[in-house]
């Protein structure tokens, strides 16, 4: 065994799934050294095995960190695969970690992943969970990083033959295990969990019947990189199924011996996604049915996804957990189930049954927790902080993702940023100026060269290929004499594709590049960076949006869609011919932060930034700090919210790096990302105090909803859960006098006028029901609900409430409860589906779970002041719902807490840490690229008419001493208004010049044979 000791202090991130990757990227983006280890052969985790992710239904993992250049990735981030932690000693800020790296038997620097070894050892390839045999040479999936195979030496008989096969000479037969000791400031655990193996259950046929498979295997079958190349067929006869059923909560939310009691939080959404994708691809040819207990679509806008599944895609939903699945002679499956409204069992035949299985911590994870010395909860997940979920029982060790509790990708991304932010606090950012000259090869001078264009289709997720004939698109592009190369990269991760394109640019001496891929909004900076690496100016590039604006929107007309693709590509080629190399403007960033909103979220973010030396301005509209948390007495876990808020307020008020403005609003705003100036207006004062800041965090919260439903505001005994919380806190005698309490869920949400789920209400009802029983054990509590959404470990509280006698009665929109007053009594009428009749309950208190709605006035004002986008229901819209959930589309703006969507305190606090970390990534760069798109004036053509001076929204143009208009590149925002208005056409907006736009129009209308 080889032993190595490294002294350089770093953050250690364990687990290379999306969470670990995100944490590692965030840390390296804020210039902190980080080592990412994974015990597997390649990083990527579960996400890379998914066909697509909800709700956007695509991968886009490459866009996680577009602002991190490849150069800084190399400097700050090291990835070690096949590596495990064996021990951790020392304390926070100064740990020593011992790592063990298993031999790969392949030199990954030499391996070209040509696949020769795999061909010669054909019993090969572990690839798809449960669908492929294990192999000596093993690459996990085509998008693997590092892009290299690994060998299981024990299974190789003839080592020399294997060596001879490898032309690159990458086989190392005597590779040995390696032990490394490293100095670690802090640890981020992002080790995830395994998917439950349903074969241990005896009633659903998992692992026994060919056509019963867990959700993840269904994803692999649907995936273009899967065993049937994305062709959906049954395993038994390779025939396309006509009826597919999903069974939810397999192994979860149960009391049987192999069940776990908690909810895995993701299965409802993934089953809906799988059913929707099935419908998208096969339409009416396949009938999809989901058997479920409660549909838990409580994430941001997830309810609308659920509604589309029902209404637009016609997915059939049956509320019940089936009894058994039996296999019929033709390998079809018969499901026996009982609906709540019918007393008899029903039987139905399906061609394929998908078992929606959830997460289970693996034994390896449990052992790892032991080696690190952190506590686990009763379900063997990390015991995390009840208020601060990314903290563990050990200082300096943070947790994120599924190992903290079952969760989906956006929540994992938020926790990853939060854990990275806290873990990074013990390590200083390195002074390192991003000097393009030294990090990239010198830019080739293409001046005077005739265009030599490379056209590349980068289709990493197979979405374009599925809708369009890429070969024909390439052929068409090649008819342009100046297109020297046209190639497609299908189903290879964009990072790999970019490496190959760099090679082709150099090999063919290309001077222009056109990429057909996803949206330039997301991918442009990534491909610009690719050009820099290849020694080309990043502006010699055009992106053609073949995916988002073609493959995804013309499913119904494939021929026309292909024709459109030809035309769009021609537009790109024609446009790029006119592209010019441009230099970018750099600007030093302001190192201050502005946090709008002084609730728990805003205060937490401000403290974290201030603790790292960032001068932070905290602006609160109300006269006091605290926000909505001031109306809440305790969390479901029993934390004292009031004491917590007071602690925060004290710390914030006393902090030397925080300047608090209460009774204040932001009133004016100018500047560019990295250098903003904002005016803050306090009280009745008409004057604004101007502050400079480089980043802005929006933590303005949401408003408790008070809809006029079920007699709220009219009947004395009808109140909201927040009102009930106050009674519980202040007036126990009133509770003691109550005999019956009715709670009504989804009051004012999941309705036509407010379609989203408010997420917090189910746990709030369960919490208050349990508190009522604590004060008055004789009280009868009825909860009228539509779906109980106690996701994750809250399921435990839901079960406790049921055990303690709280009665949960379901209703639906056709059978809404009715609240009335009669002879001084409040009476609730509800429909009982099991009895099949209406029941009436006399209530001393009716508590409505009203949730949160967007604070429309505040959000509208801020959106128009800062020019930020909103969702349809008035919350702020993040940049990427899945991968960048706390960044906003406008660089320099971040979003946290209930201003993003309704959520509980611990989730808001996680986002608060996450935005502080994301803000640090920007501040750590000290300077920011303004891009090259600024307006320039041709002095000869300028007629000094002053139109540009009047038209510019930012008053940038002025008439200089030489009697022509001048535009300061550092102040120009690049809108191009002056260019459009200039009557002499003396002004051009660089990168968007008139001849470029006209060339695009020309390209679009070029005739085809």
């Amino acid at each position, binding site marked *: 065994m080889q032993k190595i000791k490294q002294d350089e202090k770093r953050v250690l991130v364990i687990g290379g799934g999306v969470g670990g990757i995100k944490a590692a990227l965030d840390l390296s983006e804020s210039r902190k050294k980080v080592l990412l280890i994974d015990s597997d052969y390649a990083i990527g985790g579960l996400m890379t095995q998914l066909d697509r992710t909800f709700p956007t239904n695509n991968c886009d993992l490459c866009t996680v960190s577009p602002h991190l250049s490849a150069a800084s990735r190399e400097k700050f981030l090291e990835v070690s695969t096949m590596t495990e932690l064996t021990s951790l000693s020392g304390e926070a800020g100064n740990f020593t970690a011992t790592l063990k790296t298993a031999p790969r038997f392949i030199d990954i620097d030499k391996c070209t992943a040509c696949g020769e070894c795999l061909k010669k050892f054909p019993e090969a390839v572990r690839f798809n969970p449960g669908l492929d045999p294990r192999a000596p040479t093993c690459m996990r999936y085509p998008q693997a990083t590092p892009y290299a195979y690994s060998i299981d030496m024990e299974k190789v008989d003839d080592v020399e033959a294997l060596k001879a096969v490898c032309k690159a000479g990458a086989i190392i037969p005597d590779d040995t295990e390696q032990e490394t000791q490293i100095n670690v400031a802090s640890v981020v655990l992002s080790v995830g969990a395994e998917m439950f193996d349903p074969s241990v259950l005896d009633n659903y046929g998992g692992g026994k019947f060919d056509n019963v498979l867990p959700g993840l295997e269904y994803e692999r079958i649907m995936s273009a990189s899967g065993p049937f190349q994305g062709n959906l067929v049954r395993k038994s006869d390779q025939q396309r199924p006509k009826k597919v059923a999903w069974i939810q909560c397999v192994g979860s939310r149960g009391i049987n011996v192999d069940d776990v009691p908690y909810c895995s939080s993701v299965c409802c959404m993934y089953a809906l996604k799988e059913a929707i994708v099935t419908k998208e691809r096969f339409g009416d040819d396949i009938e999809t049915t989901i058997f479920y207990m409660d549909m838990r679509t409580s994430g941001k806008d997830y309810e609308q996804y659920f509604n589309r599944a029902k209404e637009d895609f016609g997915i059939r939903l049956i509320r019940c957990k089936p009894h058994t699945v039996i296999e019929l002679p033709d390998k079809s499956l018969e499901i026996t189930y009982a609906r709540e409204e019918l007393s008899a069992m029903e039987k139905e035949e399906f061609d394929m049954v998908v078992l929606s299985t959830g997460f289970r911590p693996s034994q390896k994870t449990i052992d790892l927790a032991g080696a690190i010395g952190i506590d686990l909860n009763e379900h063997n997940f990390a015991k995390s902080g009840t208020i601060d979920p990314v903290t563990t029982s050990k200082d300096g060790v943070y947790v994120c993702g599924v190992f903290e509790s079952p969760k989906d990708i956006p929540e994992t991304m938020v926790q990853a940023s939060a854990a990275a932010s806290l873990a990074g606090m013990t390590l200083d950012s390195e002074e390192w100026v991003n000097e393009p000259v030294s990090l990239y090869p010198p830019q080739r001078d293409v001046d005077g060269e005739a265009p030599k264009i490379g056209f590349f289709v980068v289709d990493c997720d197979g979405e374009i290929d599925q809708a369009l004939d890429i070969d024909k698109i390439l052929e068409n592009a090649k008819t342009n004499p100046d297109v020297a190369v046209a190639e497609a990269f299908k189903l290879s991760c964009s990072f790999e594709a970019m490496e190959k394109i760099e090679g082709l640019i150099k090999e063919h001496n290309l001077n222009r590049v056109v990429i057909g891929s996803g949206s330039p*909004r997301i991918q442009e900076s990534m491909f610009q960076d690719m050009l820099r690496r290849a020694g080309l100016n990043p502006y010699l590039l055009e992106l053609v949006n073949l995916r988002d604006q073609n493959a995804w929107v013309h499913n119904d007309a494939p021929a026309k869609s292909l024709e459109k693709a030809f035309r769009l590509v021609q537009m790109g080629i024609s446009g790029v011919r006119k592209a010019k190399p441009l230099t970018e403007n750099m600007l030093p960033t302001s190192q201050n932060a502005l946090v709008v909103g002084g609730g728990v979220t805003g205060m937490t973010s401000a403290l974290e930034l201030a603790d790292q030396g960032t001068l932070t301005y905290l602006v609160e509209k109300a006269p006091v700090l605290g926000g909505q948390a001031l109306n809440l007495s305790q969390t479901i876990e029993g934390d004292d919210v009031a004491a917590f808020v007071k602690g925060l307020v004290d710390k914030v008020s006393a902090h030397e790096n925080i300047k608090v403005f209460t009774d204040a609003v932001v009133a004016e705003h100018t500047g560019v990302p990295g250098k903003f100036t904002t005016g803050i207006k306090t009280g009745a004062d008409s004057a604004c105090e101007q502050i400079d800041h480089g980043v802005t965090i929006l933590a303005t919260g949401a408003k408790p909803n008070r809809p006029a439903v079920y007699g709220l505001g009219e009947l004395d005994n009808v109140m909201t859960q927040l009102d009930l919380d106050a009674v519980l806190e202040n007036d126990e005698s009133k509770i003691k006098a109550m005999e019956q309490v009715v709670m009504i869920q989804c009051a004012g949400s999941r309705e036509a006028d407010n379609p989203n789920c408010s997420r917090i209400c189910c746990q709030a009802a369960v919490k208050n029901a349990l508190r009522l029983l604590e004060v008055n054990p004789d009280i009868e509590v009825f909860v009228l609900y539509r779906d109980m959404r106690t996701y994750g470990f809250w399921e435990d509280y839901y079960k406790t409430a049921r055990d303690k006698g709280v009665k949960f009665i379901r209703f639906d929109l056709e059978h809404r409860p009715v609240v009335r007053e009669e002879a001084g009594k409040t009476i609730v009428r509800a429909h009982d589906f099991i009895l099949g009749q209406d029941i009436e309950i006399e209530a001393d208190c009716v508590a409505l779970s009203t949730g949160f709605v967007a604070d429309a006035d505040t959000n509208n004002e801020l959106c128009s002041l800062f020019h930020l*986008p909103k969702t*349809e229901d008035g919350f702020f819209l993040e940049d990427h719902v899945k991968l960048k959930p706390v960044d906003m589309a406008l660089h320099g703006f971040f979003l946290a807490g209930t201003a993003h969507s309704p959520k509980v305190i611990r989730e808001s606090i996680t986002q608060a840490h996450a935005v502080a970390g994301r803000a640090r990534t920007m501040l750590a760069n000290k300077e920011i690229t303004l891009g090259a798109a600024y307006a320039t004036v041709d002095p000869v053509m300028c007629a000094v008419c002053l139109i540009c001076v009047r038209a510019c929204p930012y008053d940038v143009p002025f008439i200089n001493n030489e009697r022509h208009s001048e535009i300061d590149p550092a102040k120009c925002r690049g*809108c191009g208004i002056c260019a459009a208005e200039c009557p002499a056409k003396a002004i051009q907006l660089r990168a*968007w010049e008139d001849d470029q736009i006209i060339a695009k*129009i020309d390209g*679009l*209308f070029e005739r085809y044979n």
Partner: protein
Amino acid sequence: MDNFEPEIVAFCCHYCGYTAADMAGTRRISYPSNVKIIRVPCTGKVDAIHLMKALEKGADGVYIAACLEGDCHFKDGNLRAVAHVEKIKKTLEDLGWEPERVAMMNFSAAMGQQFAQAAEEFTEKIKALGPSPASQATSKAV
């Protein structure tokens, strides 16, 4: 003219119109492939010349998709775009063309559904109008 497929160009601003179009994609809401999008930083950048050029080259209809009024990322670029569209409408009228071939639309970044719907409606409208005089001339020439 039953199978007339109009050529439509949509100038979309980066922050709203183009994002709304992407949003339609993300949600897989289809709209007619007749609509081809040209991205601009702000619709205030869309010169009257660009609109005319598109019509001259063969577009049967052209529209600008900007941010909602009051929400322009560059304060009032979308209002300037309205002025350009109005000017072109007037010019078309003078030329004896239907002014409806040019339109101004506004979307927020989240309005993917509305974007798709508007694309559909505009395409139908141009279909009803038939080929533009310029595109008739070019197709005769071919």
